[in-house]
């Protein structure tokens, strides 16, 4: 295992989608990802945070080539995924898995759990068929489900248990990197804590890395070592989680942090300086996308896109205040 080289390296990935606007008008373009660069070290959990429509889910899918990026490169363990041929990509997919917010929609309602897992094992030729039952029992045990779960259908499980099934399926092929797309967002807090604990334990046992996509800064603080904040398709700030949340640099990170509910009646009632809404990604503001909502915006913010400034201590910010 190499230590110096990141497991996943993303360089300048962009993705635009054509969007039909109104009847008769030319189609618009959404810049879902705009020159996204980041990396994840072996055994690291990187949080990717932002509000709805900021492109964080698109990012997770584009890094795994579930959506083909328009430009940019994604390197995984020293290999360029963006140019990998399909047969090679299929092999690599064993090492790159994803779990979703709503596991129910990604489970076949007419397939028993054992059949669902057996299908994955056989498609990816993980082990000989004779070993399937043993392997399936092992996987269920690993995610905290009883062996009897194998003979049940997805609808017989609660939300938290279904998320465990989604995790079992991702684990079945022995991944190194798991993209978790809002994997605990739909769960009640008591169940959320159970799943976060499970993911943490699996990470330690299997030396996993996670790209943890979420809108919840509390979850990021608890679960991630580093975080990247996205706004309208661009990464505006990255850094170690504690620094990023305790002393946010980018005005957007500050706003997000200030707006996050804190279970403390004194803190929670302080007036929060939050203005405006995320503008339409069809027609994003010029220069720095955040300038119309930014209390510190200067003239240059309207004209030029800020470049990334390294701030030391592993922190970086894309903001003219620091340029």
């Amino acid at each position, binding site marked *: 295992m190499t230590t110096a080289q990141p497991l996943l390296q993303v360089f300048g990935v962009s993705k635009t989608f054509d969007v039909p606007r109104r009847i008769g008008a030319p189609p618009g373009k959404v810049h879902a990802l705009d020159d996204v660069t980041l990396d994840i070290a072996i055994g690291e959990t990187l949080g990717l945070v932002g509000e709805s429509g900021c492109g964080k889910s698109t990012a997770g899918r584009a890094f795994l080539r579930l959506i083909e990026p328009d430009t940019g490169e994604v390197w995984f363990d020293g290999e360029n995924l963006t140019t990998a041929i399909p047969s090679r990509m299929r092999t690599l997919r064993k090492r790159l898995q994803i779990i979703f917010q709503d596991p129910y929609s990604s489970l076949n309602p007419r397939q028993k759990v054992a059949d669902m897992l057996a299908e994955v094992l056989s498609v990816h030729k993980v082990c000989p068929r004779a070993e399937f039952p043993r392997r399936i029992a092992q996987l269920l045990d690993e995610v905290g489900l009883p062996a009897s779960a194998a003979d049940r259908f997805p609808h017989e499980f*609660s939300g938290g248990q279904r998320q465990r099934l989604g995790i079992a399926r991702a684990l079945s092929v022995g991944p190194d990197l798991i993209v978790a797309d809002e994997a605990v967002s739909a769960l*009640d807090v008591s169940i959320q804590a159970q799943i976060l604990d499970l993911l943490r334990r699996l990470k330690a046992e299997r030396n996993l890395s996670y790209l943890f996509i979420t809108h919840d800064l509390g979850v990021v603080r608890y679960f991630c070592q580093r975080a990247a904040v996205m706004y309208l398709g661009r990464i505006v700030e990255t850094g170690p989680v504690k620094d990023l949340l305790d002393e946010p640099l980018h005005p957007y990170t500050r706003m997000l942090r200030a*707006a996050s509910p804190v279970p403390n009646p004194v803190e*929670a009632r302080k007036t929060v300086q939050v203005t405006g809404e995320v503008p339409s990604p069809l027609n994003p503001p010029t220069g720095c996308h955040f300038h119309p909502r930014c209390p510190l915006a200067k003239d240059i913010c309207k004209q030029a896109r800020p470049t990334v400034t390294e701030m030391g201590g592993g922190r970086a910010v894309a903001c003219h205040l620091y340029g």
Partner: protein
Amino acid sequence: MTDAPVLAVRGLSTQFRIGGAWRAATRNIAFDLYENQTIALVGESGCGKSITCQTILGLLPAAVARTEGSIVYQGRELVGLSDAEMETVRGKEIAMIFQEPMTALNPVMTVGEQIAEAIRVHRRCTKAEAKAEAIAFMDRVRIPAAAQRYNDYPHQFSGGMRQRIVIAMAMACKPKVLLADEPTTALDVTIQAQILAELRDLCANFNMSMVFITHSLGVVAAIADRVAVMYAGEIVELASVEELFAAPQHPYTRALFQAIPRVDETAENLQAIPGQVPPITAFPEGCRFAPRCPMRMEKCAGRPPRLAAADPASPHAVACFLHHDLALEEAAE
């Protein structure tokens, strides 16, 4: 704050017909809501918080649901009112807003007309007056360029703006009580912060009381004066927001606090609550939290603990034998 509560709920139980038998989804719900006050009902999915609000407004169909207990609104008993009598209360006196504003809006009618319609249903006024008032309310909930946007349809608004429109509609009749069922749960945090601030302002400016349903203790901290923590259809703890956050008493409330990942403090470990909320068909006999409770005692499985203050002088009530003895309860009966 006046002496008499605006809304007094006592011994409220909502039962559903499931598999031929009546099952109580909520049991013995009791709280007082005073003028200008916000009480939060907080709990996880299926704890009965939404059902309690729907019962207050009489929204559950009589064929499948029945209500026991008492709901007194400004001295008037609401349980047992006919549909026609309820109509005079609904919207005008007690209004409700929901999590998903799109489902509360008519997609083929402009938002302005919908607010104006709500005004004209409950009050005699001309169309022009209703329109002027609707625009004033849209302005009030900070919809930019309200006069122009009067003629826009719901799909032309963002989620946050739609929730503002629903709030404007609910406010249009100047209700005394607003029931808010997770109104910010589907919104991004920056929009949530704005809507919470606006609801606080509206309550203060219109002398309105609010029952606010949420699953988030962070939101409770931002909006509530009093908090009722619910579990499996019962209120397990009832206290002022300051007391509840400073000294939670019920093991479930404590467990909730230890299970939330906080944005303001780094935690080494979250304490997950083992097991899951029991289904309505399998509520335990005694304390419903007992099977998951780390402090469980033998008597917890016997009979349900009553919601009572450990210290009779304190308004901080808890339903747990750790805090008041069974013997005490029996003596009180």
